[in-house]
């Protein structure tokens, strides 16, 4: 009998102390984590609906949340919509937020979550700084202001009604931009075609899912 009670009591005491510790840490950090989550959402919305003010959220039939924004241009109020879509990438799910106007032109995208290979697919969220390591340690680095990952930047201005093409041009440069927009295409990340296509799939999926809702809300 003693062989049962003592180990059980010890285990109970240890797990009780562990739970107490975790509950304390959770209580201390809870507000900060909630704050960071809402900041991340706000930042993503600012990227995918640039210049729009968010007027509210709505829910689809499947209980998925999407955001509605509006801005005034030439005296007219125009609506923008932002929604979240997911699709499988090279390793794990890629979650994107996509912003469109009521004609389904893509205003911007933001990759919220990805677990792609560092140095290859993970470059989809990489910001290409022109400063080199030597600039930084010698103090001659230039402040480049707020920048966006080049891969995601390419999507702004594409037509969501048509298929977005993926072309292998090597890494994106600003000179390619007009050519790519006319082809309704994006340039894939070198060595990460699967990731690039997965992001495009994610966007197609999201647009087809929300197409009807957004078109109907115009009437």
């Amino acid at each position, binding site marked *: 009998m003693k062989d049962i009670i003592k180990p059980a009591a*010890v285990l109970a005491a240890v797990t009780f102390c562990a739970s107490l*510790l*975790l509950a304390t840490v959770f209580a201390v950090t809870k507000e900060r984590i909630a704050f960071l989550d809402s900041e991340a959402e706000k930042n993503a919305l600012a990227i995918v609906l640039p210049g729009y003010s968010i007027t509210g959220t709505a829910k689809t039939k499947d209980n998925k949340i999407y955001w509605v924004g509006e801005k005034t241009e030439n005296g007219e109020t125009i609506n923008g919509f932002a929604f979240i879509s997911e699709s499988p990438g090279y390793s794990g799910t890629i979650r994107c937020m996509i912003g469109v106007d009521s004609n389904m032109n893509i205003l911007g995208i933001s990759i919220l979550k990805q*677990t792609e290979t560092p*140095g290859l697919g993970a470059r989809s969220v990489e910001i290409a700084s022109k400063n*080199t*390591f030597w600039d930084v340690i010698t103090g001659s680095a230039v402040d480049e202001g707020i920048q966006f990952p080049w891969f995601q930047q390419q999507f702004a201005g594409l037509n969501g009604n048509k298929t977005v093409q993926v072309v292998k041009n090597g890494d994106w440069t600003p000179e390619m931009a007009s050519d790519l927009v006319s082809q309704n295409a994006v340039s894939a990340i070198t060595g990460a075609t699967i990731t690039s296509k997965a992001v495009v799939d994610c966007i197609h999926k999201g647009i087809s899912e929300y197409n009807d809702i957004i078109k109907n809300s115009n009437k």
Partner: protein
Amino acid sequence: MSIKKEFLKGLVEKNPVMVLGIGLCPALAVTTSVSNALWMMIATTFVLTCSNVLVSLVKDYIPSHIRIPVFITIIAAFVTVVEITLKAYQPEVYTSLGIFIPLIVVNCIILGRAEEFASRNGVFISIIDALGMGIGFGLTLTILAFFRETLGANKLFGYTLIPGFKPAGMMAIAPGAFITLGLMLWAMNRIMVSRKHKK
């Protein structure tokens, strides 16, 4: 039992990755950048030190046949503390290390030190052991990450080294990690052998 000896054994003679061959999963997975490796060192050393302290404090009260579940509970609690704290105060590190933060629980180094060292020794010397092992593990990761980041991404701490130079992408993925680790083992054994000969 000298403090210096207990500390240094983790760095060289019983280096967890290079000599004991444990903790290889995080060593290969998070070493794509030097900053990841350094954060992994901090997280692992913290968990290792806390668990060693607690294990050496409670070792006399734990019936020996339930010691493993007790050790794992202690380790898992500290790992979760690290995970929540990073999420709240270093969200970028948290996303970049991802699943490898919760996976510190199953890092053999930590349970190994609890079982082999802390459950048989006093508190103070267990701290020294944990620091030596944690830093030995972390330094190996940092050296590995240095080669992989410079050669595989042409970067250091996220900044480009040579503009316009095309890096060897293979170094950024798993095969590159194995090759680099293999070369590091060769170099280390080479040095150890020639040292022994001199003596």
